[in-house]
């Protein structure tokens, strides 16, 4: 049987205009990598939006996925929290198993 190892999966749903700043922040932290996925549509406390019905990047969301070691999570969360506190942004953390633990 293939052995797997526990890691964490951090997901940040954030507004597109912030994406560059968030990625720059992550580049400065001890994060093994990340992948950003586009979103199509959404709703939150405020407006509902559709990608094809926006005049601007404002309001469009992007999901950033980070697979990382549990040990690195607190430092990363703390920095992200600083940036996101006044901004829109949904941060979730969950458990995952990976194949190659040395990557993260």
């Amino acid at each position, binding site marked *: 049987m293939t052995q797997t190892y526990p890691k964490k999966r951090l997901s940040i749903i954030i*507004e*597109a*205009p*912030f994406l*560059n*700043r968030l990625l720059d922040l992550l580049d400065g932290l001890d994060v093994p990598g990340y992948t950003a996925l586009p979103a199509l549509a959404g709703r939150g406390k*405020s*407006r509902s939006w*559709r*990608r*094809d*019905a*926006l*005049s*601007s*990047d*404002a*309001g469009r969301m992007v999901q950033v996925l980070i697979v990382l070691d549990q040990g690195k999570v607190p430092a990363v969360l703390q920095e992200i929290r*600083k940036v996101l*506190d*006044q*901004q*829109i942004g949904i941060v979730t953390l969950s458990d995952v198993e990976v194949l190659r633990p040395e990557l993260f």
Partner: protein
Amino acid sequence: MDWALAIQNLISPPVLFFALGLVAALARSDLSIPEAIAKALSLYLMLAIGFKGGVAASENGLTVDLLLVIGAAGLLSASIPILAFWLLRTTTRVSQIDAAAIAAHYGSISIVTFIAGTAALDAAGIAFPGIMVAAAAAMEAPAIAIALFLAHRGQAGTPQTPKAPWREVALNGSIVLLIGAFIIGMVTGQKGYSDIEPFIADPFKGVLCLFLLDMGLVAGRELRQVRKTLTPALLAFGLYMPPIAGVIGGVTGALIGLPDGGIALLAILSGSASYIAVPAAMRLALPQAKPALYLTLSLAITFPFNLTIGIPFYIALAGWLS
């Protein structure tokens, strides 16, 4: 006001396609232009208008003083938000931050309104100086700077204000393309123009129709939320601010000696409100300001107003002033 011109504008294909989009979105049709296509149409319009402006500027020489026009445009872009902010704070109940964010939009410009204005001038046979494109490019940063100042004025030590978005504003893709294409047009002149004319000139008006169809769809979706987000006082602001700013812009244009078409375009720029670059900048710089307010106002109220009534008014205004 020249009523024939006004009606001609209203039943021109670009305005009618905008109306089609508006109606389709209000009726909740699923008609939509993919985001990538809308971006491409907007890049195309920017490239074409910049390039043509550059070629025109290379032709006539810089018929009017480039620096004078840019200076006047920058000044307008910095002072209109102050007026808008004051009007908002005295006539509506929006917070200081929201008022500042809205003001930034009205100090800045809508390039599509500008382009529709050039199309209307073309249709009316009125020439305009190529360098007006440079004025358009100069009317973004000052509005944002003033608005940030207004937003934080009197607030001792706001903790953790986000980094100001200067890098993002200065290197904003649309502005870079507009200015870049302008310079390329200046450098290659008429020869370069004739090379790519079948791409940037011939289909221009048709592409504008398609883009305005998209803008109609977007504005219509916004308009559906107007009752939820806008008070009557705010709605009124979206309607009286453009002509006020337009008159200020037109008078300024006359003072610095612009020709007829230049006055009209400076009035159009002053009267129009941003809904592309400034909203994104506001999300970065003033995340607490409510996008629902400034987007709905600028996109669902001011933009349709300018496209239908504003433009013929600004053109007529230019006729009176010159």
